[in-house]
């Protein structure tokens, strides 16, 4: 099953650089758009909805939801990049095929795409954190910076999940399954938007099995309190599942590309 071409190398950076070159042509517009969007999210959820929510353990709802939004933005950006983006490169534009006529292996291409997903996640999350800090919702700038490696992992993880679907997808419309089965459940139940305490046991258990929950726990702890309970446990789950998904992504893309 594991062929030689599936092992990545440093050459993955050449793929990453291609994505960066492409990104340079549209990032200004994107940043402006995202910035506005983030402010809207925060106003609508944090302050609009937040008025109905009592303070949670002494923090306001806006404070609570800020880190949740940071993590979900990392999830959304890396998902778009690895589903629609990668499918386009794989099947429509034949970018992968061109890369494979150069001395890049499938492993290099997959890893390059994933590194790029991680990079996009960091960019998106950083923009969100800038918005949070403008609203005074960030405890310490240093602790905020320390979440970036976690955000990068989230990018790798959702990039991998997206690539699994991109490898399987017969057409673009397939991704609506990906969003309703993978992304939306995590967006709602990974403790991004509301705390789990007081929810039915089944739902709480379900939430614990979502890898994103562990990312949210770490990021919320760091951003608000500068400390995380059970840090190593959460990190282990996050990193472990990311590795597994990365392997699945490589297999899925290889099956598609190697005929």
């Amino acid at each position, binding site marked *: 099953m594991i062929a*030689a071409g599936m092992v990545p190398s440093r050459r993955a950076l*050449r793929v990453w650089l291609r994505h960066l*070159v492409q990104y340079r042509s549209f990032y200004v517009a994107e940043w402006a758009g995202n910035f506005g969007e983030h402010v809207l999210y925060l106003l609508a959820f944090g302050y609009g909805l937040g008025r109905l929510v009592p303070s949670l353990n002494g923090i306001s709802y806006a404070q609570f939801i800020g880190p949740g939004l940071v993590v979900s933005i990392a999830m959304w950006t890396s998902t778009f990049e690895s589903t629609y983006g990668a499918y386009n490169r794989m099947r429509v534009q034949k970018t992968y095929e061109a890369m494979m006529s150069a001395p890049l292996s499938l492993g290099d291409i997959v890893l390059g795409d994933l590194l790029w997903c991680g990079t996009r996640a960091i960019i998106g999350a950083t923009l969100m954190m800038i918005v949070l800090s403008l609203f005074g919702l960030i405890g310490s700038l240093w602790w905020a910076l320390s979440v970036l490696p976690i955000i990068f992992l989230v990018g790798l993880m959702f990039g991998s999940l997206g690539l699994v679907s991109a490898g399987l997808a017969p057409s673009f419309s397939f991704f609506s399954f990906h969003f309703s089965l993978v992304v939306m459940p995590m967006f709602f139940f990974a403790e991004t938007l509301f705390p789990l305490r007081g929810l039915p046991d089944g739902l709480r258990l379900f939430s614990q099995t979502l890898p994103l929950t562990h990312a949210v726990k770490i990021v919320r702890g760091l951003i608000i309190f500068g400390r995380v309970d059970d840090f190593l446990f959460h990190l282990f789950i996050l990193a472990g599942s990311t590795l597994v998904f990365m392997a699945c992504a490589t297999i899925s893309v290889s099956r598609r590309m190697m*005929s």
Partner: protein
Amino acid sequence: MVAELDIHARGLSKSFGALKAVDGITLQVERGECYGMLGPNGAGKTTAIRMIHGAVRPDGGELSVLGRDAAAGSRRIREEMGVVPQEDTLDNELSVYNNMWVFANYFGISRRRSRDRIEELLDFVQLRDKWGEQIKNLSGGMKRRLLIARALIHRPRLLILDEPTTGLDPQARHLVWQRLRELKSGGLTILLTTHYMEEAAQLCDRIGVMAQGRVLVEGPPAELVRERVGEEVIELRGAGREAAAAALNGLGLEIERAGDTLYLYCRSGAKAVERLASAGEREFLRRPASLEDLFLRLTGRELRE
């Protein structure tokens, strides 16, 4: 003396389901040689070529490219091989110049080191004034030329082109032919497919004609035409063509009928023309035999799927 083989395939096969797209072909391309694959649509040319450059995995057979076993991880091969695929694989999200340097970077050539080479290549295919253009604003023929320039970025030893001039206007086609001849005289080994007989005749030292996954004949184009078709062809298209052909009985000509035309293949047409004249037949065309005759004789004059 045995020349070195840059491509050596034996019994190479590939099936898609029940369809044998490539059915055990044997192919040898010597260093510095230009080899052309001809064949009707669906003959298996692209599939064969894609196996050779590593985009499709063969079901069977042996394949060595540039002296290396092509089955086991072919990265070293790809470092020394340029590929122009049948379908455009340009990076539509980048400009012409960025396409070139990003591709150079895939080979580990830095942006700075690739700069001169890119200018040289854009000159080579006459696209220098398009360097800042987005790919979607290029015409089809410009894209083909850019694909050729891109395939040369790392100075390959072997160039593989799948229909390099399809969709090109005559000027651009002649430009590409000229460039390919220059590259060949610089020692580059070339494997190409084409539907243009003139292209094969002009560029290729040897051609192979494929149909239904097999190579039917192989050899230098002029020789093949002489051996398999003859020197001259006479085409009869008049209403009395059958009667006229009867007048040629005894000359031992090969006759082929297709639609409204009778083709007579001969070593020399002089005798036949004399007889036709004395039989009063004036509606005929006498011309030298060409690769097109060979192609059509081998693969049939009718379109078939």
